[in-house]
């Protein structure tokens, strides 16, 4: 699919649930209200939707949440979608918080999941428990090790937080690289209303880069994923992504669209415009669904409009867990 700005759209991020077993402070409020189940797409609907996108030229599918592994029947969904691998779909990947990865890594590998992104914002048990409001880092580490043992490539995603993990960025990168995992650092994004002030927690990526560059010499890596990430290789051979989601330098090569677990198609993480694909799905007319997707993609916005500034932070009201993290 080619959008109205001649960008080739090949990457779909599909959220399978808005529920999560963690409550990361930057992601959702402590007492998050989840969607009624009737609003969430069924496994059959998720399969039909993903399959329609793959039929239209999506070659990379990332399953997101919420936490995908808390969705009942998730492995069945993955098993079903794996039929497209080698037949339109090149990559079936997912993002997870890792709490249940130890349990499911073998099944994911068996059904063709080649890579997982695991969110880990601290290796310190107390800090991790504070950021996630109760998470157990030991379970997540066991999950990462299980995924690696199962042959799944792992990337660790770290949201850089001024008060929580800025002093830990070198240790986190070291830890990931020792396991043969890549790691990416991400600036906090103005998505959804959460209690903690985002200005207080915002760390510019140049600050992360400075800390890493005191430990390693960093060589730029030509690895374009069509996203807002810059990749570098350390002189010890590890890969590090430095992600500045608020900057719009990368919109020109954007290759992705997002679908929420209620079937809302967002053409840009940082824009409110959406198309209700659930209504199309439930109307039972595959041609209408495909036409709606094609029309929406043609109108994909050129750029987002994020701003982090004192008193007037400008973002979107949806929580990260709604659109898919």
């Amino acid at each position: 699919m080619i959008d109205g700005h001649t960008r080739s759209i090949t990457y779909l991020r599909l959220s399978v649930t808005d529920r999560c077993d963690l409550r990361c402070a930057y992601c959702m409020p402590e007492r998050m209200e989840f969607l009624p189940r009737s609003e969430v797409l069924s496994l059959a609907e998720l399969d039909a939707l993903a399959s329609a996108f793959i039929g239209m030229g999506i070659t990379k599918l990332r399953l997101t949440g919420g936490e995908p592994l808390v969705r009942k029947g998730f492995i069945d969904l993955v098993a079903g979608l794996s039929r497209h691998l080698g037949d339109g779909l090149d990559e079936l990947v997912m993002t997870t918080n890792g709490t249940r990865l130890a349990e499911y890594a073998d099944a994911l590998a068996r059904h063709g999941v080649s890579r997982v992104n695991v969110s880990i914002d601290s290796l310190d048990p107390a800090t991790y428990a504070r950021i996630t409001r109760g998470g157990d880092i030991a379970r997540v580490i066991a999950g990462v090790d299980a995924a690696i043992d199962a042959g799944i490539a792992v990337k660790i995603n770290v949201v850089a937080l001024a008060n929580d993990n800025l002093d830990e960025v070198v240790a986190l990168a070291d830890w990931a690289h020792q396991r043969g995992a890549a790691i990416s650092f991400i600036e906090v994004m103005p998505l959804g209303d959460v209690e903690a002030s985002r200005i207080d927690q915002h760390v510019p990526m140049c600050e992360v880069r400075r800390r890493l560059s005191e430990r390693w010499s960093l060589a730029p890596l030509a690895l374009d994923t069509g996203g807002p990430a810059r990749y570098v290789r350390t002189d010890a051979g590890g890969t590090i992504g430095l992600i500045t989601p608020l900057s719009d330098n990368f919109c020109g090569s954007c290759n992705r669209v997002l679908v929420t677990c209620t079937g809302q198609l967002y053409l840009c993480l940082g824009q409110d415009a959406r198309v209700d694909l659930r209504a199309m799905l439930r109307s039972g007319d595959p041609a209408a669904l495909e036409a709606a997707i094609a029309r929406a993609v043609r109108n994909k916005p050129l750029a987002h409009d994020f701003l982090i500034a004192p008193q007037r932070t400008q973002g979107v009201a949806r929580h990260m867990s709604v659109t898919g993290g």
Partner: protein
Amino acid sequence: MRLTFFGRLRDAIGADVIDCSIPANIVDSEALRTWIGQEYPALLDPNVRIALDDVLTAGPAPIAGVAEAAFLPPVSGG
């Protein structure tokens, strides 16, 4: 050091103020541009002017002791 961005640079970067410590080997305004430009390529445009503590630079200027570097987008004439 405090980095401030104006006009369309503010929109391109997604922030108007960034506080960031600068590595010791970055000693002048153009090296600073190259360093920060790794994250924000919009700043690499040579037409983006840099002011150090409110003084506009023309070419590399030392940043030792500077509290604020402001990045100014090119202004079209006419």
